[in-house]
């Protein structure tokens, strides 16, 4: 289990790679070769992630004494105390000792003995009821007190559990493929070095975020991925639209960060700890006791999720973020960074579960925002001509799906969808990049068409990923989407009917708009100029790998009944078995719905009908062509979609512009004309009164008297000098006269 306990190495490697590329890239290594550093580093972490994943599965399959929740209690302190300083070891020992020991020990102690080792039974017994599997506690290895302040310790460390390793594998895999793909795509770019440096930094930050031990680390990682996103969206900063998009992304995320900061602070204030493990454990130990605080925290954090994961109403930055290089869009704005919000919900699921009362309600804020975003994004995807923007809205929509899944309590479904979506959406983006690479760097679908025959590899991978996204059997998306719909239908204590309707509508729309993209891009006649060509192998091989994952990715969480005929029931629900942090969720009473064939068929039917309708519309030229020109309602609707519900106008022209111009200017006016005026007026009146005082008092009275004294001395001197005649006899006269006068006075007085 070495890798799990030393997982901090994983973000460290790309961080080093970042430093090396940035400081030595241009001079020592040479601009053209920096990708070697990046690819080496990411390959390394890819291997390490797989090792970590393997070790985690081993840990779940064969829980050693310290892996199981209530036993791990005592061991944590000892294990890590030796290596990494006492402070943390003690903390952990205490936390676990209080929470796990008391609560889980009672509830689940008996389960352990029976279930453990009989993996085949888990899937069966897990359905509909609580948890069958052992409560595997995460590997939390806090290796250091990072800093302390006023008696509050801030730790830095890793929190490794199934969810973490899943994300590790996803991030490392996609990052590796994107690194390789980029060697061709951004070849000869003016800022090749910076590009790879930022890719490394992003990978490091994302991995740091994923394995954060505490919520402060979550914030740090969250912001760092944000800044990498900013840097990469603005990669071509010479053009203003790119920098506008970068700014928009960063600022929108900052708006959400208010929620993040406040929400995390509320969590800290409520539980007195930053540790994710401790917070989750505390909530699952006694659900409902802190409901109000958790509601506040969950609402605040929801704002953060909305900004990072592109949820309504803060989703508008994501389509604009497509200004960045396409591989970046694939990595950051489709597969990894934008799922940070979803990941955070999953990570702190007890907070949201309790805060939004997911278990007992049949609609809640998170489910609604997710569902609404899914629907809205899908709608917007129809009205875009830029292929990347279609994919961006599709991402918004799919992220909405994941959030909705979490909102209805389908934790595993959401994470499973996150997993599959990362691969097929990255495939679609890289495919779009390949198309643009071929077709003269345009993303406008009106200038494409008929590319099928020019670039077969791109075409087929794109189609596979499209089918996966649409949710067609047996592609990956089918399985994950099916689980989400099922989760919405069954819910927890009651179903989520509205979410189910949203979900079904989105399933239909997704298939339809993706088919539209395929039609405009690859079929029909070529509408651009020049001669498109297939991309080189270094780009198509990653595409095929991703397409392969889009094809088979569903196998990771197949429902039991599907595998029964093959006798492989033991392999069912692997994501659920390995990734789900049952140690936290069990206390909440989270249940899993039974697989339902009917629901799967409905989902499939909707997706197929979406494809068929669009197929008929484009290929067979059926349906109401030109409806938007003829019908004013349709036209109005289309305009409404085309303008993205006018949200951008609201944000840019009303909110931002008003802050930038009138509000800021009035604040400045206030500063200059009120505060500063007051100061200046005080100064001026002081100066005026000074002048008055100078003129009348200083110069008039005080100086006047001084001058008068001088003048008196002058005139009296003038008078006296005549006495000094120089004649001895005059002096004598005065002398004797004075003596006589004095003598007289003397006589009189005496």
């Amino acid at each position, binding site marked *: 289990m070495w890798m799990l306990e030393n997982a901090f190495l994983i973000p460290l490697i790309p961080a080093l790679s970042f430093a090396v590329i940035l400081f030595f890239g241009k001079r020592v290594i040479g601009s053209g070769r920096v990708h070697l550093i990046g690819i080496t580093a990411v390959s390394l972490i890819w291997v390490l992630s797989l090792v970590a994943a393997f070790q985690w599965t081993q840990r779940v399959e064969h829980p050693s004494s310290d892996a199981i929740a209530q036993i791990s209690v005592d061991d944590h302190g000892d294990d890590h105390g030796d290596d990494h300083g006492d402070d943390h070891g003690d903390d952990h020992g205490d936390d676990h000792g209080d929470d796990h020991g008391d609560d889980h020990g009672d509830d689940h102690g008996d389960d352990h003995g029976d279930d453990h080792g009989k993996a085949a039974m888990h899937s069966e017994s897990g359905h509909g009821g609580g948890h069958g599997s052992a409560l595997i506690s995460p590997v939390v290895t806090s290796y250091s007190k990072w*800093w302390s302040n006023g008696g509050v310790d801030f730790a830095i460390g890793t929190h490794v559990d199934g969810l973490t390793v899943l994300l590790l594998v996803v991030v490392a895999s996609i990052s590796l493929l994107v690194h390789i793909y980029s060697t061709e795509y951004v070849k000869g770019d003016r800022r090749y070095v910076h590009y790879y440096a930022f890719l490394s930094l992003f990978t490091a930050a994302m991995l740091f975020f994923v394995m954060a031990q505490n919520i402060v680390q979550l914030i740090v990682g969250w912001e760092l991925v944000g800044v990498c996103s900013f840097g990469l969206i603005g990669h071509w900063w010479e053009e203003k639209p790119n920098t506008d998009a970068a700014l928009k992304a960063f600022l929108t995320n900052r708006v959400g960060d208010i929620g993040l900061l406040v929400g995390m602070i509320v969590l800290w204030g409520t539980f007195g700890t930053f540790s994710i493990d401790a917070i989750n454990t505390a909530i699952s130990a006694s659900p409902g006791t802190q409901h109000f605080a958790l509601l506040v925290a969950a609402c605040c954090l929801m704002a953060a999720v909305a900004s990072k994961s592109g949820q309504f109403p803060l989703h508008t930055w994501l389509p604009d973020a497509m200004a960045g290089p396409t591989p970046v869009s694939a990595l950051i704005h489709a597969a990894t960074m934008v799922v940070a919000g979803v990941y955070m919900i999953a990570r702190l699921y007890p907070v949201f579960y309790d805060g939004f009362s997911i278990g007992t309600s049949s609609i809640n804020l998170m489910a609604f925002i997710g569902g609404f975003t899914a629907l809205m994004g899908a709608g917007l995807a129809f009205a875009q001509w830029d292929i990347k923007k279609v994919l961006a809205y599709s991402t918004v929509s799919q992220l909405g799906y994941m959030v909705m899944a979490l909102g209805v309590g389908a934790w595993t479904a959401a994470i499973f969808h996150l997993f599959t979506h990362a691969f097929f959406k990255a495939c679609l983006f890289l495919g779009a990049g390949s198309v643009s690479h071929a077709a003269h760097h345009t993303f406008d679908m009106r200038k494409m068409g008929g590319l099928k025959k020019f670039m077969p590899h791109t075409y087929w991978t794109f189609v596979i990923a499209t089918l996966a996204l649409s949710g067609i059997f047996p592609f990956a998306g089918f399985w994950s989407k099916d689980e989400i719909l099922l989760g919405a239908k069954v819910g927890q204590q009651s179903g989520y009917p509205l979410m189910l309707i949203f979900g079904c509508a989105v399933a239909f729309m997704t298939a339809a708009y993706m088919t539209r993209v395929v039609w405009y891009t690859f079929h029909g006649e070529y509408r651009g100029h020049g001669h498109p060509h297939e991309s080189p192998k270094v780009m198509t091989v990653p595409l095929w790998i991703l397409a392969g994952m889009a094809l088979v990715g569903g196998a990771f969480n197949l429902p039991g009944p599907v595998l029964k005929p093959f006798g492989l029931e033991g392999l069912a629900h692997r994501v659920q078995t390995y990734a789900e942090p049952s140690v936290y969720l069990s206390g909440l009473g989270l249940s899993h719905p039974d697989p339902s064939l009917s629901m799967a068929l409905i989902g499939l039917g909707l997706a197929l009908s979406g494809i068929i309708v669009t197929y008929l519309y484009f290929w067979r030229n059926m349906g109401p062509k030109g409806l938007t020109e003829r019908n004013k309602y349709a036209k109005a609707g289309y305009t409404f979609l085309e303008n993205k519900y006018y949200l951008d106008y609201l944000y840019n022209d009303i909110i931002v512009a008003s802050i930038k111009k009138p509000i800021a200017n009035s604040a400045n006016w206030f500063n200059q004309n009120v505060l500063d005026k007051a100061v200046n007026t005080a100064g001026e009146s002081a100066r005026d009164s000074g002048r008055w005082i100078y003129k009348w008092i200083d110069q008039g009275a005080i100086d006047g008297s001084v001058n008068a004294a001088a003048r008196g001395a002058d005139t009296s001197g003038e008078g006296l000098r005549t006495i000094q005649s120089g004649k001895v006899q005059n002096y004598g006269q005065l002398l004797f006269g004075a003596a006589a006068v004095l003598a007289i006075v003397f006589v009189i007085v005496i």
Partner: protein
Amino acid sequence: MEATGFDAWVLTLAVFLPLVGALIMMVVPKAYELEVKLIGLGSSLAALAVGIYILFQFDYGSSSELQFVVDKGWIDIINSRYIIGLDGLSLPLLLLSLLVVPLCLVYSWNHVPSPGNPKAFFILLLILSTGMNGSFISQDMILFFVFFEIVLLPMYFLIGVWGGEERRYASLKFFLYTLFGSALMIISFLALFFLSKDAAGNPLQTFDMRLLTDAAGSGIVKTTQVWIFAGLFIGFGIKVPMFPFHTWLPDAHTQAPTVGSVILAAVLLKLGTYGFIRIAIPFLPEAAVAWAPWIGLLAVIGIIYGALGCLAQKDMKRLIAFSSVAHMGFVMLGIATLTDFGLNAAVFGMVAHGLITGMLFFVAGSIKERYHTLEISRLGGLLKSVPRMGWILGFATMASLGLPGLAGFWGEFPAILSAYNPGAGLSEELFRTYMVIAAIGTVLAAGYLLWLYQRTAFGEPTEEFADHAIPDVSRNEWIAWVPFLIGIVLFGVWPNLIFNLTDGVVSSITANVEAVVAGR
């Protein structure tokens, strides 16, 4: 306990070595320009070396105690003594001050702004250094006041002689404004002198800060305390500068020469916040509790208001100056919570702001030197014409907007965090409201800083400068900037460097406040 041997001298050396250097420079004829400069740099480096010695000799185990204490008679007739000492609160600020001055000297080595005269310029910087260093280690109020005032004069001349177009207006405003605050401050000092009583009820009649800290305002009725605090509040608040007293700052910063702005931002403003933590709060805890909500209110107004002010600016330097108002708002919010957490955050924020804003002013100064303008609309494409400087500006911008991993974040985030649970029985609802407002301030901060960066660094250079060959960062600039950049990263990655130092001191301060509040 008093220091002995060489240790008794180190603080005095750290304070007065620059002054000695300045005196030697005065007698060297102007014609020996290089020698004059070398003497100046040498003396400031010697002071820095003493600072580094202190860094190694400092007993980190008892960072809450005063160390290197010297207590000698000075002006016996008013019972004022030469008491100096250093604890975990003073150490980071003293080192910051010791570090900034030689870097400023290096930066202006060959670039003394018009009208030249490097000798006078260097001498003034060294005198300034003495004043700043002395303020941070004085443990006697009169001594503190003297150093506090010494700072004013060189700064006045730096702005008034080497400043920009409206330097006379700006320098006079700076001088009078701060002097006004000092006047009220000294009245409060005198009131403390005459009114403070020791535990037995005898008048203390002392300026010794240690005794006054122990007395913690005993023997002074609360109303009087509140009034005395008001004097201190205005005196320090002007220096910080807090919201309604900030208007001198943009003018002073805009007009000051580059190193003047840097020192102003990096060290001078900290004198105000330092005064709050060292003097106002421990001496008058009851009044501090009464004032805290208002300080918090002004702090959050400052955060939002400074940010909005930034958005309206057309001049880069003025924008950075307004951002100081916003950032110092976070510091003051931390102070207003009266928790050890918040005070720690405040000290960290002070150091971080010193490094980051100092860096921003350095870059702004270098841009001004190259482009002869700081009008944002005329700049653009810095990344293209001077890529390294553009990167450094971007780095400083990111640090300033509070990116985690860089120093700025650890000043802001804990300050916001501390407002969740204010100490000393302050209203939680009120401070939580402040917390949310401050969090909104971070968005605005990102807004104005990135907008600034977009307009100056991104895009193509404006036509005006498109054909000019503009030199990138020079050697002297690298020497002056690298320590700042390292500091920003170092404190960002390892915030405990400062929190560890200050924790002991502020804990004892807040414990005192809590005890006093609980006891009455």
